[in-house]
């Protein structure tokens, strides 16, 4: 009998305690905010969308190799020494490799940050931008290369020309060598 009344009393009493807690919170300061109008500050270290600085990228492909989900696609072209443009990197050193294609598929990216740590020139960086949803998956593939298709075509031709020339020169040299040997 005593147990019964005790049971009823704890039932009632703990409910009152709970109500006191919620009443206290009813008048507490609210913690949520009006999201798109107000935002919490995002620390600069936060790993959100990636951004490539094409000027800095030297096409070493380290990032695409380390990426655990293979979402970075890099294509490179050698810069011919005879290039009339004399391309330069961000710090003025001559560029050795063109990067005609540098695509990141953000639908796959897991924001692990490995690509940014291996990059020797800090060309690829995380930004604090996290609002870039889109309607199609294609829109999530970002093309970072700053080379226009014409330019790529031109550089390809240049390279082809140059390699052909080199080959010819090499062949000539070789034939000279072999002819020497014959002699």
């Amino acid at each position, binding site marked *: 009998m005593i147990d019964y009344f005790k049971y009823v009393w704890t039932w009632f009493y703990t409910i009152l305690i709970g109500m006191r807690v919620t009443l206290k919170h009813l008048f507490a300061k609210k913690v949520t905010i009006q999201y798109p109008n107000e935002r919490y500050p995002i620390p600069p270290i936060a790993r959100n969308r990636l951004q490539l600085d094409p000027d800095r990228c030297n096409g070493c492909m380290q990032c695409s190799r380390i990426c655990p989900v293979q979402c970075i696609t890099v294509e490179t072209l050698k810069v011919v020494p005879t290039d009339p443009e004399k391309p330069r990197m961000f710090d003025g050193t001559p560029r050795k490799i063109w990067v005609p294609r540098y695509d990141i598929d953000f639908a796959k990216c897991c924001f*692990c940050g490995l690509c940014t740590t291996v990059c020797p020139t800090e060309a690829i960086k995380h930004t604090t931008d996290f609002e870039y949803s889109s309607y199609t998956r294609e829109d999530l593939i970002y093309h970072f290369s700053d080379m226009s298709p014409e330019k790529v075509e031109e550089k390809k031709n240049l390279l082809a020309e140059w390699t052909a020339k080199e080959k010819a020169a090499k062949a000539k040299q070789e034939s000279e060598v072999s002819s020497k040997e014959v002699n």
Partner: protein
Amino acid sequence: MTTRKILDIDFSRIDTDRMRLNVGPQHPSTHGVLRLEVELDGEVVTNVIPHIGYLHRCFEKIAENMNYQQVIPYVDRMDYISSMNNELPYVIAVEKLLGLKVPEKVEYIRVIMAELNRIANHQIAIATFGLDAGAFTPFLYLFRDREYILWIFEKATGGRLLFNYFWVGGLANDVYPTFKEDVLNIVKQVRKTNKDIEELLIYNKIFIDRTANIGVLPADVAINYGCSGPMLRGSGVPFDLRKAEPYSIYDRFDFEIPVGKGEVGTVGDCWDRNIVRMREIEQSCRIIEQAIAQMPDTGDVQSAIPKKVRPPKGEVYFRCENPKGELGFYIISDGKDKPYRVKGRAPSFVNLSVLPEISRGYLFADLIVILGSIDIVLGEIDR
């Protein structure tokens, strides 16, 4: 079949048709994509068959094609609620293979981060457990606090849930200057909320009625099934890897192992499992405070990171006390820069296996509570 007396009626004597009920994969309280095939006799559960595999991502196979560093983001995604604690056994295992010793400061930061993440994990566990019992408000109080912890993570590591922060031999980056103050503030806040939660939920009579004497898991059954973590400790077995075989620098801290004592019901019921989590939060706070006090201010967190992780031939099994239980990694190296085999021993998977055993004979509403008290994460079960 174990039967339980409800309102003094022995339900096994009443012969009724069994009903088969599919709970999930889309159901509000299966904690992800778990499907439970429940056999009901009226409202009494006679059998449960969990069906898993909806979130299978081939973690172990993928890991064979990755080098050691690249596996870490995958490890994060096993138990996505306590990623730091997942990374810890993995990196320590690889360090053991390599025979590496990490700097003091790294150890301290690892411990602080792991314990913070343990708090965050237990907060979610208690919150969703309350939600399963029908209390919505504690859920949001706990999530608010967890958010503060996640902010610290974001500021320190750049990620909110999936950190890729512990690297083999060190950390991805050093913590920020005001890290210590922030962590101490969080500890204060966590303790304050714990008090609220105790008043609002834990010691509420309705909640006690819902969870005490429900899903009783005796200690021997728990050991036989290989349960670990709060599941095991809730049954009164004081087994904690941080004490039993101290790894990292856990032997330097003074803390207790809370166990279920059956304060309001039987030892090993749902309430006990929950209160163990509640008290572990407090113990984690203590560890954090000690670690913050002892942590050296200076030191390079990356000095021991090897240029190339290429362990010699060999194998290693290393286990840590994950918030959910014993998380172990078995790694075989054949001397290349990719592991030959990585096997994860997922605590949630083992803990879930005991569900049919402990939920037979209880009501359907209890089944949900029992499932909530196990604290599973499907990412870890399916891997």
